[in-house]
C-alpha cells in the first residue's frame, strides 16, 4: 500500500500557491518596494497553473489505479499530538487524493487559474499606494492554498485548517478596498457569521472524536473514521430535550451541517454572502461562487457514509437546502445590483446542492457543484466585464442595450444564463435534473414537496436570470450619455478566460450524462462522474422508471421555458409592465426588495441585545467597574493609602536601623529553623 499509493508530488499541489503567496508576502512586508507587474503575474498565475498541471497528473495516476484502492496519499509529518495509548490524539499533515478530492482539486486549480488570469486584466487599473495589486494576488494565492488543503486533507483537523484559511482569505478579499468602511464592515460580517458555523463544526469534530475514542479507535483521519464507523453507529448520548437519547451520528451530522451552512451560505447563516459582493469581482467569482462556498457541500460528500446513516440530519439538510434555494431565488427577482442577483442565485444553487446531498444524491450534489463552478464563475466574470465596460456601474437599472456594444461578453454571458436556467444540453440541465430526481425518489419526509419546491425554484431561476440578461443586454441603454460613449469591449486577458469557461459550461454536463440519454446514443455507463465517485460517496440509493425520468426532464424544461418567456415578455416586450405590477403588489415587492428583512430581524434579535449587554454589563459593569475600578485602580489606591499612611515611616534613611531589622529577621528565621 505504501509504495503504490504514495506519491510525494501531491504536496506540491497546495505548496506551490503557498510559496507564491509567501514570496508576495515577503516582497510586500519586508522588501517594501512595488514589484513589477510581470513578476507578480508570472508568480501567481504560474504557481496556480503548475498546480493545475500537477492535479491533472495526479488525476491520471488515480485513473490508472485499481478500482478498490483508488487513492494517493502523501504524509508529511505529525502536526500535533497529545496523550498516549487508547486516547491518543494526533493530527497529521497528510494529504489524500481520492476521486472526490481529485474532482475538487481540478475545479479549484482549473477554474482558479482562469480567474487568476482574468484578475490580471480586472485589477490592472489598481494603482494604489499600498501595493494593492500584489496584495491582491498574494491573498488569491493564499486562498488557493487553503482551499487545496481543505479538499486534500486526509483528516478532519487539517480540513478545518483549510476551512479557516479560506474564511480568512475571504475576509481579507471582501474588505480588499478597505478605505471604504462599508467594505470593511462586509468583510467582518462574513467572518463573524462564518464563525458561528465554525463553532458547530468544531463541536462536531469533538463529539465524533469522543465517540471514536470511546470505542477504542481514536482518530480524526477520514479513512479511520470510515473504517471504524460501524462501531459508533449505535452509540447514543443523553438528550437535553426531544426524547430520551440521540444517536451520536445524528448529532455529529447536525453539527457538521451547521458548519456547512455557515460556509456555504444556507438558512439561517446565508446573510453574509450577498454582502460579500463588496469584494472585487474576480474574488466573487472564485471564492463566493465557484470554490469556497462549496466547501460545505464537499465536506458533506466527504462524510457521505455518515450522512447516509443519519436520516434526521439528512432530512434537516434537505429541507434547509430546498428552502434556501427557494427563498434566495425569490429575493434575486427584485435585486437591481448585477452582482447581488448573482449572489442570491449562488445561495439558491448552493441550496440545490444541499437538497441533493440531504436526499442521498451525493453524486448529484458534487455534479452540480462542478457545473455550477463553471457557469457561475462565467457569469461573475462576465458581470465583471460588464461592470468594467460600464465604468464600475453595478446597477442594472442604468444598463441596457449592451448586446451590440460588447458582443463577446454578451455571448458568453448568454451561455452562462442558459446553463444556469437549465436548458439542455447545457451543463446546468443535467446536474439540476439529477438533483430533482434525487429529491423526487428519496425517502426524506415530504420529499414530493421538496421536489415541487426544487422545480418551482428552477422556474424562478430561469426567470430572474433572464430578467437580468434582458435588463443588461437588451432594451434602451439607460446609462448617462457620458458613460454610453465609452462602453467598450475588454482586452483579451479578460475575454479569453470567459470563452474557456463558456465552453466548459456547455460541455461540462457530459461528465454526468444520465444513463437514460446515454442509451439513445448507445453509450453504456455514460454517467462517468457516478462511476468515478461511487466508491467514495456510495451508490445512489434511488431508482425511478425511465418514463418518470422523461416526464421530470420535460417538466424542468417546461419550467425553465416558462421563466424565460415570462422574463422575455415583461422585460423585453412590455418593459412598462414590471413597475405597474410592483405597485399593485406593493406588499410583496417591499418584502422581496428588503430581502424579507432578515438582516433587520437579526439586528433586532441578536446584534442589538448583544451590543446592549456587552455595553451595559460587560463593558460598564465588568470591565470598567470590576476590573478597572476594583481590581486595577482599587488595588492601586489601597496600596497607596496604606503605604503613605504608615508604612513609609519605616524607611528612616538610617542604615543602622535597617541592619538591626535585618538582624532581628535573621534571628527569627534561625529560631524558627532550630525550634
Amino acid at each position, binding site marked *: 500500500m505504501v509504495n503504490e499509493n504514495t506519491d510525494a508530488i501531491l504536496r506540491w499541489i497546495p505548496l506551490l500557491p503557498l510559496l507564491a503567496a509567501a514570496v508576495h508576502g515577503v516582497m510586500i512586508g519586508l522588501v517594501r518596494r512595488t514589484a513589477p507587474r510581470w513578476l507578480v503575474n508570472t508568480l501567481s498565475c504560474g504557481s496556480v497553473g503548475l498546480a493545475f498541471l500537477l492535479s491533472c497528473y495526479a488525476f491520471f495516476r488515480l485513473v490508472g489505479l485499481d478500482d478498490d484502492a483508488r487513492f494517493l496519499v502523501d504524509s508529511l509529518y505529525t502536526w500535533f499530538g497529545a496523550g498516549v495509548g487508547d486516547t491518543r490524539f494526533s493530527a497529521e499533515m497528510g494529504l489524500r487524493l481520492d476521486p472526490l478530492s481529485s474532482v475538487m482539486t481540478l475545479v479549484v486549480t482549473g477554474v482558479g487559474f482562469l480567474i487568476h488570469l482574468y484578475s490580471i486584466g480586472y485589477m490592472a487599473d489598481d494603482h494604489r499606494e499600498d501595493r494593492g495589486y500584489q496584495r491582491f494576488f498574494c491573498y488569491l494565492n493564499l486562498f488557493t492554498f487553503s482551499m487545496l488543503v481543505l479538499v486534500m486533507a486526509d483528516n478532519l483537523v487539517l480540513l478545518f485548517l483549510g476551512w479557516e484559511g479560506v474564511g480568512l482569505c475571504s475576509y481579507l478579499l471582501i474588505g480588499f478596498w478597505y478605505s471604504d468602511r462599508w467594505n470593511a464592515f462586509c468583510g467582518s460580517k462574513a467572518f463573524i457569521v462564518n464563525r458561528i458555523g465554525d463553532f458547530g463544526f468544531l463541536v462536531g469534530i469533538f463529539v465524533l472524536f469522543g465517540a471514536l475514542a470511546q470505542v477504542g479507535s481514536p482518530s480524526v483521519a477520514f479513512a479511520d473514521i470510515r473504517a471504524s464507523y460501524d462501531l459508533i453507529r449505535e452509540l447514543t448520548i443523553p438528550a437535553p430535550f426531544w426524547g430520551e437519547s440521540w444517536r451520536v451520528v445524528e448529532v455529529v451530522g447536525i453539527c457538521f451541517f451547521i458548519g456547512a451552512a455557515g460556509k456555504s451560505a444556507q438558512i439561517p447563516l446565508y446573510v453574509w454572502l450577498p454582502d460579500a459582493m463588496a469584494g472585487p469581482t474576480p474574488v466573487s467569482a472564485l471564492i463566493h461562487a465557484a470554490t469556497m462556498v462549496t466547501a460545505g457541500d464537499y465536506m458533506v460528500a466527504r462524510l457521505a457514509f455518515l450522512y447516509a446513516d443519519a436520516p434526521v440530519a439528512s432530512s434537516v439538510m434537505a429541507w434547509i437546502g430546498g428552502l434556501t434555494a427557494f427563498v434566495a431565488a425569490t429575493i434575486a427577482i427584485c435585486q437591481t445590483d448585477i452582482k447581488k442577483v448573482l449572489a442570491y442565485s449562488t445561495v439558491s444553487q448552493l441550496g440545490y446542492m444541499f437538497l441533493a446531498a440531504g436526499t442521498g444524491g451525493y453524486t448529484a450534489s458534487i455534479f452540480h457543484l462542478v457545473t455550477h463552478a463553471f457557469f457561475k464563475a462565467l457569469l461573475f466574470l462576465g458581470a465583471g466585464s460588464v461592470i468594467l465596460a460600464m465604468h464600475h456601474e453595478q446597477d442594472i437599472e442604468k444598463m441596457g442595450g449592451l448586446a451590440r456594444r460588447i458582443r463577446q461578453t454578451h455571448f458568453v454571458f448568454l451561455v452562462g444564463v442558459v446553463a444556469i436556467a437549465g436548458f439542455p444540453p447545457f451543463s446546468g440541465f443535467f446536474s439540476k435534473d439529477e438533483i430533482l430526481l434525487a429529491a423526487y425518489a428519496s425517502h426524506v419526509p415530504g420529499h414530493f414537496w421538496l421536489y415541487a419546491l426544487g422545480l418551482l425554484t428552477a422556474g424562478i431561476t430561469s426567470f430572474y436570470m433572464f430578467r437580468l440578461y434582458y435588463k443588461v443586454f437588451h432594451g434602451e441603454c439607460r446609462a448617462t450619455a457620458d458613460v454610453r460613449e465609452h462602453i467598450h469591449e475588454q482586452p483579451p486577458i479578460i475575454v479569453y478566460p470567459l470563452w474557456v469557461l463558456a465552453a466548459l459550461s456547455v460541455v461540462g454536463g457530459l461528465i454526468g450524462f444520465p444513463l437514460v440519454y446515454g442509451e439513445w446514443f448507445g453509450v453504456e455507463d455514460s454517467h462517468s462522474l457516478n462511476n468515478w465517485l461511487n466508491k467514495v460517496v456510495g451508490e445512489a440509493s434511488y431508482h425511478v422508471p425511465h418514463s418518470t425520468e422523461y416526464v421530470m426532464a420535460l417538466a424542468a424544461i417546461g419550467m425553465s421555458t416558462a421563466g424565460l418567456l415570462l422574463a422575455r415578455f415583461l422585460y423585453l416586450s412590455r418593459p412598462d409592465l414590471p413597475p405597474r405590477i410592483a405597485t399593485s403588489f406593493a406588499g410583496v415587492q417591499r418584502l422581496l426588495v428588503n430581502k424579507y428583512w432578515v438582516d433587520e430581524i437579526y439586528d433586532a434579535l441578536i446584534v442589538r441585545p448583544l451590543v446592549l449587554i456587552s455595553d451595559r454589563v460587560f463593558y460598564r459593569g465588568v470591565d470598567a467597574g470590576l476590573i478597572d475600578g476594583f481590581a486595577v485602580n482599587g488595588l492601586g489606591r489601597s496600596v497607596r493609602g496604606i503605604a503613605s499612611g504608615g508604612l*513609609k*515611616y519605616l*524607611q*528612616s*534613611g*538610617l*542604615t*543602622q536601623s535597617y*541592619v*538591626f531589622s535585618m*538582624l532581628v529577621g535573621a534571628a527569627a528565621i534561625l529560631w524558627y529553623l532550630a525550634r
Partner: protein
Amino acid sequence: MIPLEHVILLSAVLFGIGIVGVVTRRNLIVVLMSIELMLNAVNLAFVGFNRMWPGAPGQNALDGQVFVLMVITVAAAEVAVGLGIVISMFRNRDSVDIEEVSLLKW
C-alpha cells in the same frame, strides 16, 4: 588539639562583637572594621570545621579552607569599594558619620 567547641565559641564571640559594632557605631570606618571582624569570625569557623571533618579516611578535603581564601579575596575587594565610598563621603560632607547620610527616606 584544640577542641572544636573552643574554636566555635571564639568565632561566635568575634561575630557578636562585629554585629554590635555594625549596629551601634556611627563612624563608617569603624563599621567597616566591624564587618571585617564578622567575616573573619566566619573564616575561623570554616577552618575549624574543615580541620574537624577532613572528609573520608585517607582523604584530606580542603573545601573549608578554599572557602576562606574566597572570603578573603571578596573582603579585600569589598574594603576597597567601602573605603572609596568613605573617602567620597568625607570629601562631600566633611564627616564620616553615618547618621548624617539619611537622605534616602520618605
